[in-house]
């Protein structure tokens, strides 16, 4: 295990160049190129704004503008969800590497997570612009928590990415199951409805079991709501849990590693 973690550090050059390749390849040949990383969230935000101010105005106290509030949770969720679905197929897509080259397989799911993290970062300026335009100025002291939340999510996503990638090699069904699970997960996380809503609070213990609740609530508190981050204990607890989960998932991945070259 120890040597595996050391290897991960050794592979950082490889990981970095693969992430760069992933990003370059995604927009290669399109006219607007990287601008899409900004345009996509911008369009999404405009649509949400239109729906929730004009068609279906949401007047919930304290969460105005509603679209910007939702966006604080949706951006990290998109990073999370696309990371996992990319990672689940990553070993199969990279089968050539695993079968024909001596290649550290764990790099592939991690590249999926990191490449999507870059997309998340690229979308942040749009979110920040909307926050400022709508008069929501994030507290600078609160913003210190932002990298911590990102780090926790990175470890948590990487753990699940490793596990899903390894299992999908054996059970191709996982990719389809995952799409549905992610849909369910999205709606059971306080992203498009606020955490303090009465109905949510009634089942608070249930929501607390959902790891992504704590990430979403943290992001919302850091970026959208004024005042100090009230959720920091949960965030740190999730961080600790994520590290343990990561080690467990990496162990599982390592156990299944020898089968990849034969099954992929």
């Amino acid at each position, binding site marked *: 295990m120890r040597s595996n973690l050391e290897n991960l550090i050794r592979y950082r050059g490889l990981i970095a160049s693969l992430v760069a390749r992933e990003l370059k390849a995604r927009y*290669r040949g399109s006219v607007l190129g990287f601008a899409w990383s900004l345009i996509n969230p911008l369009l999404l935000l405009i649509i949400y704004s239109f729906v929730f101010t004009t068609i279906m105005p949401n007047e919930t106290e304290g969460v105005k503008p509603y679209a910007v509030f939702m966006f604080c949770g949706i951006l990290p969720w998109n990073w999370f969800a696309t990371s996992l679905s990319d990672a689940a197929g990553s070993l199969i897509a990279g089968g050539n590497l695993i079968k024909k080259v001596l290649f550290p397989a764990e790099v592939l799911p991690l590249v999926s997570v990191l490449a999507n993290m870059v997309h998340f970062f690229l979308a942040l300026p749009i979110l920040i612009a909307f926050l400022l335009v709508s008069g929501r100025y994030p507290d600078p002291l609160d913003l210190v928590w932002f990298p911590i939340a990102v780090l926790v999510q990175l470890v948590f996503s990487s753990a699940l990415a490793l596990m899903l990638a390894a299992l999908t090699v054996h059970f191709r069904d996982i990719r389809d199951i995952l799409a549905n699970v992610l849909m369910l997960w999205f709606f059971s996380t306080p992203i498009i409805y606020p955490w303090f809503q009465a109905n949510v609070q009634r089942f608070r213990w249930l929501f607390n079991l959902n790891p992504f609740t704590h990430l979403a609530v943290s992001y919302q508190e850091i970026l959208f709501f004024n005042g100090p981050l009230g959720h920091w204990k949960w965030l740190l607890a999730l961080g600790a849990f994520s590290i343990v989960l990561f080690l467990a998932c990496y162990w599982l991945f390592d156990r299944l590693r020898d089968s990849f070259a034969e099954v992929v």
Partner: protein
Amino acid sequence: MRTQSYLTTQRKLATETRMYRDADRRLPSACSSLMRDLQPSETFPALTDVSFTVPKGSTYGVIGRNGSGKSTALKLVAGITKPTGGVVRVDGRISALIELGAGFHPEISGRENVFINGIMLGLTKRQIQERFDEIVEFAELREFIDAPVKTYSSGMYMRLGFAVAIHVDPDVLLVDEVLAVGDEGFTHKCLDKFSEFRRRGKTILLVTHSLNLVERFCDEALWLDAGRAQTHGDPKRVVGAYLTAVEQGEEQLMVETTARAVESAAPPGADVPQPQDLTTNMFQATEGRWGSREIEITDVVLRDAAGQPSHVFHSGEPLSIVLRLRAKQPTDDVVFGIGVFNAEGVCCYGTNTFIEEMNPAALNGDAEATFAIDALDLVEGTYKLDAAVHKRDGYPYDYHRLLYTFRVKSRTHDVGIYRPRHKWTFSSNVQFLQRDDRSGS
């Protein structure tokens, strides 16, 4: 030992290709038996008790039929798959040319792919930077290096992959049949590069179907069959043993083909006699059997130089065709005919005793007719045989059309049908190297 040998597999290297439950996997059972499914459901021994040592600086060839475990052996040495038993020990940096350009991404440029591929193969960015021009030069892709790899032809793709892999500058180079790609010129360049590697004392493990290459290039060879080492040692001897086995396999195949053809040909008396001129018949290439069977060809045997029945012959060697016959009643009107056809159905040669102005006087009971060829001067290929007995006017007693198959093997890959006995001579100012000098060692 570590200093002497760069590559050893110790004692009884074995691996099993695990086949996992796959086809009929349904969701409920997959979930309920998750852990069980992660165990291989069926195993197939890909290599059994294979053990070999490649001394530092030598070139080692592995030959064998498809599916004999050659590539598996290479992957074990490369560390891509793990042996289920035994140990592989390799001292030094490995570069495996198993699939060229395996990590290339089609959308990004050749330049970017060189860097990423190089990093995958264990180089640092700086090392690639230093070798970049050399790589591009070697791949002959200077004007295309900034185009996306998806626009490359498959030859260009392979060349770039090869160029990167070879410039990793490994201590041990593993090569899996990659010379089959690329045009003639590039293949020579690769061979030159290998020669350079040898001169610099690098170790090469080569898996190939090119026996020529093994004989010319390797210091030692290993022949794998069905996952077991058949023999190893001197390349010439190993290749010879392998070729003999291949011929035996082909022989078996010919025997079966012939037996099937004879069996499926028309049973006696079930057909209408087709009294036709033998020579026109020669050019209709549909296999079958017809005739009145008043005289029956009971068997056709091909014999080699030693008089042994065989179906595989070497170009230039003697061949005898023996017809075994049974005449139901004595007759004096009989012609024996033979025709040889190649795989395209072209009649290579046809004759009969009537054409050759032999007048039959009597045939009675069981008899034998032998058609002996001193030297079978045909090029390599599969040939089919006609054997016939008929009357002088063409009325067939028993006509076997293309029922017998034999194979001619040749170490020279000349073309056409017929190889005339020949010799090249030159004026004194034309000179040729000895064959072995071409490897450049």
